[in-house]
């Protein structure tokens, strides 16, 4: 299968404190790849470095055969990488529709268009409505994003991420703060909206991870402990030692 993301020997230090070291990672087109690890393992830092928020201290990142190391965020996004955030990151004062519309405007490459009015032919509106319906958010269309429930904001975060129709979707703990019921719905929704896409997901709920992912990478203390299919990860002795109690059926399966 085609590799769409390749991370080579990636390290990230913050003022001398090493958070990631020697990370090598490959993401294949169409796979659902989960990244797991204890708190502070460096999962979010890895996400932030790949997506351009942090510049790597060492190493290279290739996305769609382009060396995107050190690229500005918007350029990486335009190439086809879209991500969500662990802490809700939306346009709080804008309505839900306007939030999604901002993503669609960008996807249609209208960001810098100054010689026609916004959405003159209604195309952006139609597409925004489609994404809103896809996420089952229709009834909250005109509600300011800041007034949505926490679950609603989580969905909007997901909507903004998938609205760009990216090649690679990166979700950083999309179920953080949701209860069991909401988590189940969220995962269903994630399955639905990422159908046929490549997905990297950071997730704490191991039930979710082992059900959803095609492959899993385990990170501990800033390094990769193991990468493999859910079954391989279950059987991996190092992972068992470091992470045993969290993995469902690890001892029995």
């Amino acid at each position, binding site marked *: 299968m085609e590799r769409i993301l390749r991370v080579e020997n990636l390290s990230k230090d913050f003022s001398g404190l090493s958070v990631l070291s020697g990370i090598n990672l490959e993401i294949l087109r169409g796979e659902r790849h989960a990244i797991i690890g204890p708190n502070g393992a460096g999962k979010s830092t890895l996400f932030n470095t790949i*997506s351009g928020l942090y510049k790597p201290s060492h190493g290279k990142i290739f996305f769609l055969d382009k060396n995107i190391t050190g690229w*500005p*965020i*918007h350029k990486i*996004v*335009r190439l086809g990488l*879209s*991500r969500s955030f662990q802490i809700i*990151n*939306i*346009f*709080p*004062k*804008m*309505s839900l529709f*306007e939030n999604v*519309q*901002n*993503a669609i*405007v*960008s*996807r249609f490459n*209208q*960001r*810098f*268009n*100054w*010689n*026609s*009015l*916004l*959405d003159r032919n209604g195309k952006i509106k139609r597409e925004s409505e489609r994404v809103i319906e896809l996420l089952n958010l229709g009834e909250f269309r*005109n*509600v*300011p994003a800041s*007034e949505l429930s926490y679950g609603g904001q989580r969905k909007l975060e997901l909507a*903004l991420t998938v609205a*760009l129709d990216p090649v690679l979707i990166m979700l950083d703990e999309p179920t953080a703060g949701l209860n069991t019921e909401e988590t189940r719905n969220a995962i269903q929704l994630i399955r639905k909206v990422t159908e046929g896409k490549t997905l990297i997901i950071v997730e704490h709920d191991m039930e979710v991870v082992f059900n959803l992912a095609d492959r899993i990478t385990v990170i501990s203390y800033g390094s990769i402990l193991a990468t493999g299919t859910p079954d391989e990860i279950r059987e991996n002795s190092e992972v068992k030692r470091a992470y045993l109690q969290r993995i469902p059926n690890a001892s029995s399966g």
Partner: protein
Amino acid sequence: MISYWNWPKVLGVGIGILLLFFPKMLSETHINLSIEIFIFALYAVSFNLLWGYGGMLPFGHGALFGVGAYTAGLIFNHIPHMHLLLTLLMAALSGLVSAMVIGFFCVRLKGAYFALLSLAFQMFLFALAWKWRDVTRGDDGMGIVRPSLHLPGLGSISMMNINNLYYFTLIIIVLGILACYLFLRTPLGNSVVCMRENELRASFLGYRPFMTKFTVFSFSGIFAAIAGALFVLFTEFMGTNSIDINMSMAAIFMVLIGGAGHFLGPVLGAAFYTAFQDWISSLTKHWWLIMGIFFIVVILYLQGGLISLLQSERIRFWLGGQNKSANGKNTESRKPV
């Protein structure tokens, strides 16, 4: 009936008709005051593009007003036969170029650093205007003669006639404000609002913060400079008063008083600021003291500006105004805070 017609539109059309007949109704003093208000209205609207919509509060916007003023002033003096519209165009260009240079450095910064760097640029330009006496005549300034406007078919229209100047200014200002309004309705205008709302999220949607902010900064410079040029035409004087710190503060106060929360807030602010200042300065020489107290009251108790009073529910009710959204809150978020 008014609610059916949407009262702001009725009010707008009413004021528009009134403006057309002002020269027939008002004394020369009041026509002069109206022209001054028009000029500051455009200036304040250009400032609001940055502050109200872009979320950038520059302390040195007066620099762009001043550049336009000096460009026009020098042309009036040295090339008196240049077409008036071409002079305005040159002023607009000078504003655009200056804003591009200043913006190139400033928009990389945020908050206080952005504000202070723009102020530093203004101090530099002010020093240039003050010290480069050979060209600018320093703090003595320079009187200018208002050129006539030559229009094909209409012949030569003298700007010495206050009515002509009134209509000329009104047309330019309306076109300028309309351009700013339309700019905000374009996808690019929407991108500017995204920068204010959440720059990081916008970046992760593919927006490029630097270019977006740089563009609106440059665009705003055009209109600040046109206002500056009209100011020189109106006052028949080119001097450091058009480029000093007070001019920057005036923009902040006008937008603050009118309300950055609405596109027309700055227009209202400019009208109030100019008229109020005119009135109290005729009453007492300590008028700045009163202005100061007034600003303090506005900042403390009326952060939405005067326009927020018009938007308040009670007044809307009395005017038979628009319905609010179902949840009782205004969901139109394109409008700034």
